[in-house]
């Protein structure tokens, strides 16, 4: 089960772990095809060319495999989709809940991945 975006998809927890541990900078948007999630996917697709040092992925929130993000301690208080998480060298360094605009996302990318 994958989302209908043009981003690269993470389908399993094992793949998620493999990606974050083998790639320095990773952004994953975990959501559905809903109005709060779609703008974030759009922005990520646009940023792929600009932030070549970051790997952009999505993951279907309702997949059982997405527990790796749903149950992350940093997301424990989240009650709004999407859950967007940022990893540096395998470590979760930032997480946001609900819709984010381009400026909010690039601020995080610049702060953690520059």
């Amino acid at each position, binding site marked *: 089960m994958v989302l*209908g975006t043009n981003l690269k998809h993470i389908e399993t927890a094992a793949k998620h772990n493999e990606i974050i541990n083998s790639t320095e900078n990773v952004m994953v948007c975990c959501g*559905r*095809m*809903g*109005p*709060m*999630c*779609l*703008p974030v996917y*759009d*922005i990520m697709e*646009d*940023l792929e060319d600009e932030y070549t040092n970051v790997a952009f992925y999505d993951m279907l929130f309702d997949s059982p495999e997405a527990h790796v993000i749903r149950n992350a301690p940093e997301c424990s*208080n*989240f*009650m*709004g*989709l999407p859950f967007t998480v940022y990893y540096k060298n395998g470590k979760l360094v930032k997480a*946001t*809940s*609900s*819709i984010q*605009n*381009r*400026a909010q*996302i690039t601020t995080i990318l610049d702060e953690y991945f520059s």
Partner: protein
Amino acid sequence: MDFDIIIVGGGPSGLTAGIYASRAKAKVLIVNEGSIGGQMVLTHQIDNYPGVESVSGYQLSKTMRQQAKTFGCTIKTGVTLTNISLDGEVKSVELDGKQTFTAKSIIIATGGRSRNLNVKGEDEFKGKGISYCATCDGDFYRDMEIIVVGGGNSALEEAVSLTKYASKVTIVHQFDHFQGYQHAIDEAKAHSKINFMLESRIIEFIGTEKLEKVRIESLNSGEITEMSISGVFIFIGYVPQTEFLKDKLELNSWGEIVVDNNLQTNQKGVFAAGDARVTRTRQITTAVADGTVAALRALDYINQK
């Protein structure tokens, strides 16, 4: 000049304008703050778009976007419009405070957006107890008590849909009556999980890591009470996204852009299309028609130069 036409907004009117203008070989930039497709992407299924039996709003948006790109449109999405200059021969937009692009003509197609309450704590608890989308976030509130703010069709219908998850739904509304259709009012009133706080408004959201309670003011007595609550869903209608045009274009008292029959605003070379302009009917089909007219008139304008 960087472009012939800059289109501000990537909903159905903006994308259609982009398709028509770029197909006519104009150099076109579409800038968009939210999601490409605008409010159209919120629609799960569209059954009344002529020529298409049934399609999701997301799919229709993707197709329109692809058409615009195929004809040569440059599309920048998720950007923040930090300045716009509409007077004079050279129009311009500034994006994210960094890049400025110029054009001979501009089409405003910014549509509408959900209205915020604009009270203390609203930004802080977005996604941590405050939501604007029942479909997206309803299932986070299983067996919890929540508030729905609003009195129109969206608030009433979403309150009923949220009873699938929540143990209790309180509708907080500023008036003593509802603006929704009678059938929506009747359904909400008949539901055993829904109760009402009329002539009241939320004045503050309170919590630490997530929303824990709200302060509610009675508009009759002025009394302020606190209510412990897990979530608040806000459905208080749409506003045209035209705040940035105050003092730049003629707007009516609701903030809608005033246009003539050619969708020309009071500034030469500046056109408006879709839900942001003065109009009574706001449908995808009317937005598409507006985009067509605005693009053709903008092409006329730049060709006369």
